């Protein structure tokens, strides 16, 4: 091999590095100090954000106690190997160690992750951070600590502007179910099956804008039929989405409009209670249903028409037939449902479904029809596997800008 006597021009280096995906750039920071400096520089990040697409890097998994108020501190990062045929992915528990305290992950959006202090807490904070460069912003907890509502859902809305190359602004949206006084027509019809006041259970939204550095309540409300909200808000195309029972609650952040979209298939259609999750793929909302009929993935075509299109369906028998080394007797297990669901879809992103089957987690690449075992439940070192919070994460190198109103930026040792 000929050795090049010339040193590669700085411009050429930028051209090349700005076309390398974020994941690889992180390991390239180790090449030498100069490269570390270049890769961390805003100019390179700016160029790189404009030239490369975000790729699914892994899933953040954090277990939750259902009845106990205490938070489980372990946060797992299930790293997804790009070519799923390579098999083994990796589970780490130290991803958020750079934060000053243990946290509970609340949302993940374009590389940024939003978390809060663990309960029980003295003085709680909200953190918005980027695990790739270990930078974070700390926000004051704006609500009452004594009446802490664990079922509160907080989502992160963040669009990055490649021309800026840093986190310029983001929004946080808190979702709550509240009783809202509604002016009812006094026609005397029996709407009074509700206990006391003429209040309706509605979803309310509080917005935080990093630009303004403050919270305010949105005027928008949305009627709630079910209090259960899966705290995994997905930000797709300017709209936040949450699973609410079977339905999907959406909130257009810019215009502050909410919609409650019914499930693609009513729950009554199934014999056993189906499990579902939502995810983003190709910039669109997808809805995964796992039932005795198999794995079905729907895509939302139209928000206002509630138009769902099925994009993938595979029966349990087919899955078992294709991967007998992993699965056996799926249908019966799903129907029996002894200790909770046998097959539980946890998260879905870019065609990859993370699902829990019995004691293992699998990555199911539906586009390429590949199934890999990600890890076992034990690898997750969690005390509970019921109802965990799972987020898809795509690594991005976006740094926080030096000046962020109402918050302070801190950098980890690097």
């Amino acid at each position, binding site marked *: 091999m000929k050795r*090049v006597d010339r040193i590669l021009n700085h411009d050429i280096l930028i*051209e*090349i590095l700005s076309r390398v995906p974020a994941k690889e750039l992180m390991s390239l920071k180790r*090449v030498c100090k100069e490269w570390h400096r270049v890769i961390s520089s805003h100019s390179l990040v700016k160029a790189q954000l404009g030239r490369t697409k975000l790729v699914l890097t892994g899933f953040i998994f954090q277990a939750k106690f259902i009845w106990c108020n205490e938070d489980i501190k372990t946060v797992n990062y299930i790293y997804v190997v790009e070519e799923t045929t390579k098999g083994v992915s990796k589970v780490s528990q130290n991803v958020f160690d750079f934060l000053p305290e243990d946290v509970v992950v609340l949302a993940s959006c374009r590389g940024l992750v939003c978390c809060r202090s663990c309960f029980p807490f003295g003085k709680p904070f909200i953190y918005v951070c980027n695990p790739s460069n270990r930078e974070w912003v700390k926000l004051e907890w704006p609500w009452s600590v004594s009446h802490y509502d664990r079922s509160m859902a907080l989502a992160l809305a963040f669009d990055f502007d490649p021309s800026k190359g840093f986190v310029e602004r983001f929004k946080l949206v808190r979702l709550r179910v509240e009783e809202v006084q509604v002016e009812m027509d006094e026609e005397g019809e029996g709407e009074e099956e509700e206990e006391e006041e003429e209040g309706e259970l509605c979803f309310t939204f509080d917005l935080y804008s990093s630009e303004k550095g403050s919270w305010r309540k949105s005027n928008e409300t949305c009627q709630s039929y079910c209090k259960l909200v899966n705290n995994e808000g997905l930000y797709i195309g300017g709209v936040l989405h949450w699973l609410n029972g079977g339905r999907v609650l959406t909130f257009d952040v810019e215009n502050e409009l909410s919609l409650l979209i019914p499930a693609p298939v009513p729950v009554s259609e199934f014999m056993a209670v189906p499990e579902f999750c939502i995810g983003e793929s190709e910039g669109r909302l997808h809805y995964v249903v796992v039932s005795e009929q198999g794995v079905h993935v729907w895509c939302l075509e139209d928000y206002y028409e509630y138009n769902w299109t099925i994009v993938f369906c595979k029966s349990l028998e087919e899955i078992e037939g294709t991967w007998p080394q992993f699965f056996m007797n799926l249908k019966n297990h799903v129907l029996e449902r002894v200790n909770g669901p046998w097959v539980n879809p946890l998260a879905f992103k870019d065609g990859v479904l993370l699902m829990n089957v019995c004691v293992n987690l699998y990555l199911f690449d539906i586009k390429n029809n590949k199934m890999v075992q990600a890890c076992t439940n034990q690898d997750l070192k969690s005390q509970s596997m019921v109802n965990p919070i799972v987020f898809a994460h795509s690594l991005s190198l976006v740094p926080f800008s030096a000046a962020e109103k109402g918050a302070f930026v801190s950098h980890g040792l690097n």
Partner: protein
Amino acid sequence: MAEATESSSSQTLTLKRAGRLRAERLIAERQRLKQTLTLKIVKRESDESSSSQTAEEEFKKLNVKEGEDSNKSSRKDGEKSKKLSKKEEEEATRIEVRTVDDVTLVDVHGENFSDVVQVDSVSSHLLGQILSYFAEQTRLAGEEDDLKKYEEEFVAALSLDEMKEMIITAHRLRMRKLVLLLSRSIANGIRNKTVEFVREFFGVVNDYTPDEEEAYRKENDWVFENIEEN
């Protein structure tokens, strides 16, 4: 001139015999001669014919000298001649005039020289490749699909090292499209390579202490997969 020729050709002997100062002086002279071999890049607006003639003349002059030296210098094995001997085994090529973007490559009609045409220390083989790229570009201009197909085939045929050499030249000659194409390909090429490979490839020296490197690795362990050696 004749003196210079003779002295440079007996360079190796000089190095051994004469004093260091004299050897250095001879080498410097040789470098100076080499410098005038640089391909002239002329802006489109300027007078093409006259400038091309000047370069042509210079080339002719130098090629004559080179021709005389080649036989003797090809036997050299001194380290100082590395830059030169690397090229001296290759053949001269014809470089035709091409108008590419804002750059006009100057016409050099080489006669049958048994040694290289040094264009900023670029191998003629590489230059040939670059020129065929541009020939295809102009030929297929407008046909997007064909162009894309050609580009894919073009980079597929190149090794990573060749791409690296080419991008340096393309950058120097300000060939934007080629630089973009090559940077994309090189970026893809270094993607699953170890850090050590990348260091060697780019000729970068690692200035991290093993401890520092280990600390960084540990912190970001969650994102480093087992990259294959290549």
